[in-house]
C-alpha cells in the first residue's frame, strides 16, 4: 500500500535523464554497460523502489548518483538533476557538500560499513561535524539524540561503545542514524534489510517509514524483494541488464505489469493460495553485460519474444501517464519500424 504525502506539485526532487555508466577494462577492450539510458523521477517525500537481479545495475546506479565510482567506471552520458542542479557538472568538492548532507545513503552490510576502531558516537557525529562545523560536544549530543530517534535503547551507553558490541539490527539502525544526521532530502537505501533477520526487518522498515514521514524524506529503496516494494514504495522501477524495463506506480504495475520480466518476477512469488506444488522460476541466466545480445536484453529468456525482439532493442515508451516500459510487445506498432530504433 502506498503511503506518505506525495507532493505532486512543483519540480521533482531528483530527475535522472538518460544516465549511462560504463566500466571499461584496462586495455579498453571490455566495456560493461552497467547502467544504460536510465531515466527516473523522484518527488519529495516519495519512495521509489528499484528492483532487479544481481548484476542488473541497481547498486551501480546508486553509486553513480553520488558519483562514488571505482576508477574503472565512467559516466558516459545523461544528467542527474537534483533540486534543479545537474550533479554531473559539479566538482568533487561540491559533491562532498552534497553527499551525506543533501543526499545520504545506507549500505547493505552494517558490520562492514562501520569502522571498528571508532566509537558509535564518533561515527554518527562525524557528518555533523564536517557538514555543519559543529563542535565535538554538540555533535556528540546530536548523535545521542539520533540514536534515540532510531529507537536504540539506552543511547547514552551505546554512544560510547564500538560497532562490534552491537547486534546486526542495531548496527543497521546506526547506519540509518548516520544517514539522516544532516537532514538530507533524499536517502538511498541499498538492500538495507538483506543482512537482517526477518523479525528485525519489519521493525526496521517501520522505522524507515516513520523517519520518512517526520522528515519529509524521499527514499530510493534498492531491493530484489518485491514484498518490501509492496509495503514501502509508491513508485517502482524494474531494472534488467542495466536498463529500466518498466516503471510506474507500484499498485498499477502489480496489477497490470507490462513487461514480460516484471510479469515473471511477480509470478515467481509463491502465494499461500497457490495449488501448484512447483515454484515458478525464470529460465536462463542474467546476461553478460560486456557482451549483450543485439536486440532486447531479455529476449533470450522471454517466453513471448518474437523475431523483432532479437533484432533491435526496444526504446522506452510511455503506454500510460506516469508509466514507462521497454518492450516491443507493449507498443507493437513501433515494431514494424525495424532498425531505426535501437538502444538509446
Amino acid at each position, binding site marked *: 500500500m502506498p503511503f506518505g504525502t506525495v507532493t505532486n506539485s512543483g519540480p521533482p526532487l531528483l530527475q535522472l535523464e538518460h544516465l549511462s555508466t560504463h566500466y571499461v577494462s584496462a586495455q579498453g577492450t571490455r566495456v560493461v554497460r552497467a547502467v544504460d539510458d536510465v531515466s527516473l523521477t523522484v518527488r519529495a517525500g516519495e519512495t521509489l523502489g528499484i528492483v532487479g537481479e544481481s548484476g542488473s545495475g541497481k547498486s551501480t546506479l546508486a553509486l553513480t548518483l553520488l558519483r562514488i565510482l571505482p576508477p574503472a567506471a565512467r559516466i558516459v552520458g545523461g544528467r542527474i538533476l537534483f533540486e534543479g542542479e545537474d550533479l554531473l557538472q559539479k566538482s568533487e568538492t561540491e559533491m*562532498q*557538500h552534497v553527499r551525506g548532507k543533501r543526499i*545520504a545513503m545506507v549500505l547493505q552490510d552494517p558490520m562492514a*560499513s*562501520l569502522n571498528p*576502531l571508532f566509537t558509535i558516537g564518533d561515527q554518527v557525529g562525524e*557528518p555533523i561535524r564536517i557538514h555543519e562545523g559543529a563542535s565535538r560536544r554538540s555533535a556528540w549530543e546530536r548523535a545521542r539524540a539520533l540514536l534515540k530517534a532510531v529507537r536504540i535503547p539506552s543511547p547514552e551507553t551505546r554512544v560510547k561503545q564500538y560497532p562490534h558490541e552491537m547486534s546486526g539490527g542495531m548496527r543497521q539502525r546506526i*547506519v540509518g542514524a*548516520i544517514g539522516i544526521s544532516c537532514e538530507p532530502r533524499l536517502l538511498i537505501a541499498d538492500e538495507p534489510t538483506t543482512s537482517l533477520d526477518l523479525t528485525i526487518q519489519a521493525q526496521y522498515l517501520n522505522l524507515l517509514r516513520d523517519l520518512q514521514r517526520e522528515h519529509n524524506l524521499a527514499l530510493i529503496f534498492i531491493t530484489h524483494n518485491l514484498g518490501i516494494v509492496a509495503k514501502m514504495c509508491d513508485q517502482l522501477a524494474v531494472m534488467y541488464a542495466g536498463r529500466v524495463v518498466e516503471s510506474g506506480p507500484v499498485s498499477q504495475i502489480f496489477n497490470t505489469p507490462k513487461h514480460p520480466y516484471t510479469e515473471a518476477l511477480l509470478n515467481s512469488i509463491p502465494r499461500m493460495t497457490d495449488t501448484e506444488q512447483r515454484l515458478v522460476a525464470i529460465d536462463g541466466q542474467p546476461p553478460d553485460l560486456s557482451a549483450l545480445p543485439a536486440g532486447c536484453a531479455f529476449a533470450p529468456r522471454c517466453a513471448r519474444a518474437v523475431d523483432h525482439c532479437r533484432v533491435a532493442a526496444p526504446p522506452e515508451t510511455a503506454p500510460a501517464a506516469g508509466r514507462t516500459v521497454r518492450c516491443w510487445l507493449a507498443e507493437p506498432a513501433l515494431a514494424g519500424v525495424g532498425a531505426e530504433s535501437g538502444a538509446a
Partner: protein
Amino acid sequence: MKRYIGRRAGYSLLSLFLLSLTIFFFVRVTGDPAALLVEPGASASDIAAIHHQFGLDRPLWVQYGIFMSQLFHGDLGQSFYYRTPVMALYLSRLPNSLILAVAAMAFSLIIGIPSGILAAVKVGKFWDSAGKVFALLGLSLPAFWVGLVMILLFSVYLGWLPSSGSGTPWHLIMPAFALGWYFAAAHMRLTRSSMLEVLGSEYVKLARIKGLPQWFVIAKHAFKNALIPVLTLAGINLVLMINVAVVVETVFAWPGIGRLLYEGIAFRDFPVVQGVVLMGGAMIVGVNLLIDILYAVIDPRIRLEK
C-alpha cells in the same frame, strides 16, 4: 583481555623452551661438543675440566638439565677470547645494536609508510610504479653490499662520512641506511597493500558517502586501520634487525651484538656464538609477546573481550 594475554604468555614460554631444546640438540648431537666447548689449544686437564663442567660423558637428559639450569641463572658461559662471561659481554654490546636498529627502523618507517600510502592512493600511476621499483631494489640488494658501496661512495670517494666505528651521529648514518633499506622496501610494500585493502573497504565507502573530503577519509579512517599490520611487522622487524645486523655491523665495525657474533666465529669463540643465538631467539619471542599485548590494548575488539 587477561585470558588473551595469559594464552600468549603461555605460548611464549613454550617457544622459549623449544628454542633451548633446539640449540641444545644441535650442539650436542650434530656438532662435536668437545671440540666446540673447549678452547683451542687447551691442555688435557682443561679438557677434562670442561668435560666435567658440562657433563659431556653423562646421559643426554642430564646434560640438558645442566644446560637449562645454567640458562636459568643467566649463565651463558665464558668467552674464550675476552675471558669475561658471555652474558655480560652481550649486555654491554646490546645497547649499540639497539641504537642502530632504532635508527634503521626510523629510517625505514619514515621512508616506507608515506611512500606506501602514496603508492596506494595513486595506484596505477607514476608514484605507484616508482614505489614498486624502489621496493624491488630494496628486497633484492643485500644489505651488506649496500653498505660497502656506500663506504666506497661516501668515505673513499667523497670523504664525507666515516667508514667505521661508532661514537658520533655521523657514524650512524650509513649503517642505519644500509640496514634499514631492505626493511623500508618491505614496509612500503605492506603499507601499500594494506592501504589498498582498507581503501576498498565498506567503511571507507561509507565515509565517502557521508561526504567527508578525500584527505580526511584517508587520514582518519584509512590510516589507522591500514597501519595495524604494518606496525605489527615493524615490531617484529625491530628485533629481526638487531639479529640480522650482523653483516652491517661487520662492514662498518659497529660494536653491537652482530659484530660480537662475527668475532665469535672469527675467533672460534663458541660460547659467544651460542650465547648470541640464544639471546637473539629469546628476544624475538619476548618482542612477539609484547606486540601481542600492545595489540590487545589498541584494538578495542580484543580489549573488551569478555
